């Protein structure tokens, strides 16, 4: 049980916290972005920020795939769900995401056939069992889930299941990080890289962040000690004047990722020229669509979607939260009009969204206390 000893030990956590404090230069402040929603979840759940020195802050990034789906795409999905003889399938995380007027749950209550599935392969099974119906899978997720959708499409093609199609909303992590690096209202000193996305893409794609933007990145695991250790690695690079990509999560993430998953992805999907991200705006080449060769399984080609852009509600500050400009509790509607039961913004829907994570664990962290006493 080597890893258990190594990563689940309170003494080790204290030692890491002390080393972190020792590496911080006096008078300097540090802001690190955790790109992945899984990390956000751990950070709030375990109050990681309480173990960090005052001058180290964590900024919650855009790595929750539910949180970045714009309302217009939800409306497009609902349009598909309302077509005659159609079954819409989706991960449970999608059900409450608000569209312009309705969520999946609302449409289901009104009679649309919308079913929750665990895997795209479950959607494929529904298609096999309902040959008289058209079955659409609402595909969301970063590179972690996109290869699974790709294999499912390959399988549908091989089985000639022409009643199965995918409404593809897969997004890619690198352009989002680049958009954040290019955004003028943000100052970051480094990144905690996403653990599970990296099992697919590996560590190489992050190298430009160190080389071109001069920011270190450490691919991090999901346990509290992983996160503390990754922060320690980032601070050590800064203290030593180095800037590179390191892999703290090498016990799961291979440096080169998963070539087989990347091949499946490349066979079935290609980059979209542009895609709108909730809160971040339109980012070129930041999402995936189904290739022409698999057009029969592309819901956008089979049905057509209205593609109407819906502006985010004015009270919603998800964009600022996703870019790390605001902490969740600084949004005007946080915890009042916007709760996990009645979300206004998507960051409140998924348990990996920064607002939901903060709401659920209700921790009055050091930062919150500081903010609250200031205002």
């Amino acid at each position, binding site marked *: *049980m*080597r*890893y*258990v000893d190594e*990563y*689940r030990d309170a003494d080790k956590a204290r030692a890491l916290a002390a080393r972190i404090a020792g590496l911080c230069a006096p008078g300097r402040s540090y802001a690190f972005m955790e790109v*992945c*929603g*899984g990390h956000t*979840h*751990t950070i709030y*759940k375990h109050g990681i920020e309480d173990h960090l020195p005052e001058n180290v802050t964590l900024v919650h990034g855009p790595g*929750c*795939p*539910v949180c970045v789906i714009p309302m217009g795409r939800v409306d497009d999905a609902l349009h598909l769900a309302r077509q005659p003889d159609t079954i819409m399938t989706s*991960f*449970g*995380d999608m059900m409450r995401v608000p569209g312009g007027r309705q969520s999946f749950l609302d449409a289901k209550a009104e009679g649309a056939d919308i079913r*929750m*599935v*665990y*895997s*795209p*392969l*479950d959607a494929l*099974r529904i298609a096999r069992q309902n040959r008289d119906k058209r079955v659409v899978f609402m595909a*969301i*997720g970063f590179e*972690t*889930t996109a*290869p*699974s959708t790709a*294999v499912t499409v390959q399988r549908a093609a091989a089985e000639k299941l022409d009643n199965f199609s995918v409404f593809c909303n897969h997004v890619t992590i690198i352009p989002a990080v680049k958009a954040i690096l290019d955004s003028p209202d943000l100052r970051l000193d480094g990144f905690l890289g996403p653990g*599970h996305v990296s*099992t*697919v893409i590996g560590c190489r794609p992050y190298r430009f962040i160190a080389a071109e933007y001069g920011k270190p990145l450490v691919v991090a695991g*999901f*346990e509290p000690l992983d996160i503390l250790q990754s922060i320690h690695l980032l601070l050590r690079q800064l203290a030593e004047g180095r800037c590179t990509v390191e892999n703290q999560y090498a*016990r*799961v*993430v*291979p440096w080169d990722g*998963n*070539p*087989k*998953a990347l091949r*499946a992805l490349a066979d079935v999907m290609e980059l979209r020229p542009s895609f709108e991200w909730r809160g971040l705006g339109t980012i070129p080449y930041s999402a995936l669509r189904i290739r022409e060769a698999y057009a029969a399984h592309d819901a956008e080609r089979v049905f057509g979607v209205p593609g109407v852009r819906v502006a985010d509600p004015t009270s919603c500050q998800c964009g600022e939260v996703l870019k790390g400009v605001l902490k969740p509790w600084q949004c005007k509607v946080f915890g009042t009009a916007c709760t996990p039961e009645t979300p206004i913004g998507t960051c409140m829907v998924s*348990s*990996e969204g920064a607002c939901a994570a903060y709401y*659920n664990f209700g921790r009055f962290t050091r930062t919150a206390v500081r903010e609250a006493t200031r205002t």
Partner: protein
Amino acid sequence: MCLGIPGEVVELVADQPDLARVSVGGVRRAVNIALLEGEEVAPGDWILIHVGFALSRIDEAEARAAMEFLEGIGQAYEDEMDALRESGIG
């Protein structure tokens, strides 16, 4: 959906090379192993599962640590396991 859940391969499915029977937190499910690179999986191997697909191999200690961690995170893990129980990949 983003959670990676560890599972132990219990048996391979003879006529379906892409599938393995896997025990995940006491639940037995078919998991797609088409995305695993490298040598064949065998009973006793541990894998990390996302949305019904094995994405990477892990060792047993990592699997146990990850499982303990997941059980500690509460609702998100419960939801994922509920969804998994409903799943019927074949």
